[in-house]
């Protein structure tokens, strides 16, 4: 093979003027990766199945005053809020535990762009969850009006504040899962710590009086989210509590996680 014919030009050079991978394509790929594995697919299915079961249970056992659109919608948010963060965790950790990062970060070596694409996908998923909760709540409400005829059953009363608050909570929970995933880089550990750490903190804070009185309301994300679960407008103080707790449980893991992801060697 010593015949040295000059290789065609273009083969010996790198085209630095080629267009880079646009964000829209990165988002499309990450969107697909969210649901194209068995874990992702069944998580989405589990959310829908649990939501359907809750609707059925409410139709059978709930008192008449809870058979309204607003109540149904509120209940639908529970399975979504519980499982969507797991989906967000897997979206990040599978790059490490399944070692797909090797391919992901050779296709787009600017890792921050991959993180942004994944965040956009998380936002889209949270919006999708709210829309699904609205749709399922509406179906449940229609069925309630069909089978029950107590006063107020099938009421469509619902505030946009309620929808907005639900969307906010979904997105915050997703971000929290995302941050834990980036920081811990291991699916099982990230999921366990995501569920266990806040509970442990609540227990510790409940035992130690000083913490309970001075720190708890500023540092407990679960209780800070409480006021946002109703459809009512939320007080300025509740917003401050949420901002403070979110800084600790969401912003901090996100920042540390991003730092770790950008610096880590991809193995």
């Amino acid at each position: 093979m010593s015949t040295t014919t000059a290789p065609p030009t273009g083969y010996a050079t790198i085209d630095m003027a080629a267009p880079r991978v646009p964000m829209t394509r990165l988002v499309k790929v990450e969107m697909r990766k969210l649901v194209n594995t068995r874990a992702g697919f069944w998580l989405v299915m589990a959310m829908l199945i649990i939501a359907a079961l809750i609707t059925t249970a409410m139709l059978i056992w709930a008192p008449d005053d809870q058979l309204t659109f607003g109540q149904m919608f509120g209940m639908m948010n529970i399975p979504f809020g519980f499982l969507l963060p797991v989906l967000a965790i897997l979206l990040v950790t599978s790059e490490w535990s399944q070692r797909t990062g090797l391919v992901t970060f050779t296709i787009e070596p600017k890792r921050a762009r991959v993180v942004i694409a994944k965040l956009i996908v998380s936002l889209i998923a949270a919006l999708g969850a709210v829309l699904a909760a609205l749709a399922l709540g509406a179906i449940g409400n229609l069925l309630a009006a069909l089978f029950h005829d107590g006063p107020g059953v099938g009421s469509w009363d619902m505030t946009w504040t309620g929808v907005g608050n639900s969307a906010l909570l979904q997105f915050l929970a997703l971000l929290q899962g995302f941050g834990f995933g980036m920081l811990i880089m291991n699916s099982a550990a990230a999921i366990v710590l995501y569920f266990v750490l806040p509970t442990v903190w609540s227990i510790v804070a409940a035992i130690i009086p000083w913490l309970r009185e001075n720190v708890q309301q500023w540092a407990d994300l679960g209780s800070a989210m409480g006021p946002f679960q109703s459809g009512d407008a939320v007080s300025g103080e509740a917003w401050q509590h949420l901002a403070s707790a979110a800084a600790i449980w969401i912003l901090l893991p996100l920042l540390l996680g991003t730092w770790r992801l950008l610096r880590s060697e991809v193995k």
Partner: protein
Amino acid sequence: MITIESLTKSYGGFKAVDNVSFSCRPGAVTGFLGPNGAGKTTTMRVLAGLTPADSGTATLAGHHYHDIPNPATQVGVLLDASAQHAGRSGREVLTLGAIAMGLPMSRVEEMLHLVSLTPAESKRKIRNYSLGMRQRLGIAHALLGDPQILILDEPANGLDPAGIHWMRSLLREYARRGGTVLLSSHLLHEVEVIADELIVIGEGKIVAQGTKAELLQTAGTFVRGLDQSALAGALTSAGIHAVPSGDGGLRTESAPEDVGRAAAAAGAVLVELRPAGGAGLEEMFLELTAATQRDENNAPEGVAV
């Protein structure tokens, strides 16, 4: 064109890559040969921007991988065929790649066909793939964006002899069109079959490089003395650089006559003196792999020794 210059990378106190320099030219398949843990993978990972170097540079036609726009369409990389989500199908992996790189979906079919993954196989989950099938998928993924440069880490690992010959013709054709190929292996015979040029690495350092013909015809001398240390001393004082060979003798680049004269002048008794011949590369490689011999013997495709 791949250029590695004075590349060094340490993990803790361990130097995985130690001042390595070499280059790969377009139109040739360059084999990167060394025992397991010699620093091949680390070098390739630095090249693909996945591992930061401590010092030195690794560039592709003068550019860092990190700066290349849509790099997978210009540089095809296969670092670990098993690093794929076990729950995705081979076809899905290629589809994800094609979407990200902005390629038509027909490219997925072309690549599956090229690496002989049947439609049924392509729809199976990767957890059910054999190592050979994963390697074929990995090669399909590296070639997906029709790159000018290929970086393949142990691509022949897990392929049967027919698969290795298939890869040889594939890469030869690719190089003939002007592509640059850097491919690593820990098996000498595998690299001998596929590569045009060779770079041999051991314990993080380059120990030999050149065309396959050059390396396989290494001139030099093998010499064994009654008193090994006396012989070594005699050669050193005559200005002949000699290194211990794997089988109790010494190896040097000097001609047999010079070695004989040096030994005679010092009165060192020789029991063996001969031209080293083409066995040089093999012997050197044996020496390099001596530490990992036990692993080699257990490897199913351990045909190098």
